[in-house]
């Protein structure tokens, strides 16, 4: 169990540095996202393996990511009246822009992948790199 505590220390340290950096520089990014970039650097520099404390603690938290959104999500009860009153624009806005955004990112990345795959030489994407779903 001590491993998990060490891992949690790493995660919290990265978050703290991220939060401080965001406040000191006034950049409009949340601290944890900066912390994620920091941890990426740490993992890269320290060559951590799959069984290291930070990986075990991090994987545990990630496998329950959905749980951590529940307290904020339950805030929907405060806005039930607003949701009912503006049901049409909210439903159309949420569903429509979600679908358009999903298609925009998905298609841009895959279409450009296909174009590149058609090119000969080192620019081409090797077949082993394109992972398709069975």
């Amino acid at each position: 169990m001590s491993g998990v505590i060490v891992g949690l220390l790493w995660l919290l340290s990265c978050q703290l540095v991220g939060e401080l950096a965001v406040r000191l520089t006034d950049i409009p990014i949340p601290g944890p996202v900066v912390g994620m970039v920091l941890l990426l650097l740490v993992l890269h520099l320290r060559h951590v393996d799959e069984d290291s404390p930070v990986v075990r603690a991090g994987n545990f938290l990630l496998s329950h990511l959905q749980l951590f959104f529940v307290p904020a999500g339950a805030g929907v009860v405060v806005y039930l009246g607003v949701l009912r009153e503006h049901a049409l624009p909210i439903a159309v806005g949420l569903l429509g822009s979600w679908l358009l955004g999903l298609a925009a990112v998905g298609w841009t990345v895959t279409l450009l992948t296909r174009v590149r795959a058609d090119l000969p030489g080192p620019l081409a994407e090797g077949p082993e790199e394109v992972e398709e779903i069975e």
Partner: protein
Amino acid sequence: MRLHETWSWLRSSPLPWLLLTVGAYEAGRRLRARTGHPLAQPVLVALVVVCLAIEVSGTPYADYRSATQLIAFFLGPATVALAIPLHRHAHRLRGLVARMLLGLVGGAVVSTTSAILLVRWTGGGEALQRTMAPKATTTPVAIALAQRFDGVPALAAVFAILVGTLGAVAGPTVLGLLGVHDRRARGLALGAVSHGIGTSRALHDHPVEGAFAGLGMGLTALATCVVLPVVLALVM
């Protein structure tokens, strides 16, 4: 029997709400394992149970929120931990960086612009348009952006979580219908429109999709912060 004292202790203790939230989430996990149905997302099951309990018991949301502070706190270190799958699959980024950035910045423009215009065309007011605009970003960013650009911060958080849950439920199916089969593209797209909640579905489906969803989420947060002021200046 000190029934009255015990009852008032129970009412002010965070324990019942913590238990209910974690219990409903665990029930959702079991439902997912048993049925495998896309609607059986732990976050959705937990939200339905918790919202019903709040409504039925007449508890002010602020009380529930402070009782479950402990759970919400872990969103921070969990977001930091998204670096782990990303690090493991970083080699798959080779040759993809330019396309990915183009896709994600384009996605942020499409998401924010279409959210504003669709709300406007269906009769939503300016405050609602400004609140809807940042909803694709992860909850803390959506809150910060709504605050900065005259939306309603708490409602922006609700929109973000609704759209995240939508992604967890329907994202993989819709990506299949759209013909997006490359695991990296699927992950990026799901993270870009449904942030951490979509990412958790992606992590559950496939490790590569999960890693790229985390990346899509993080970069979309950045891109939206840069793009939103420009979009607002152009379309508002």
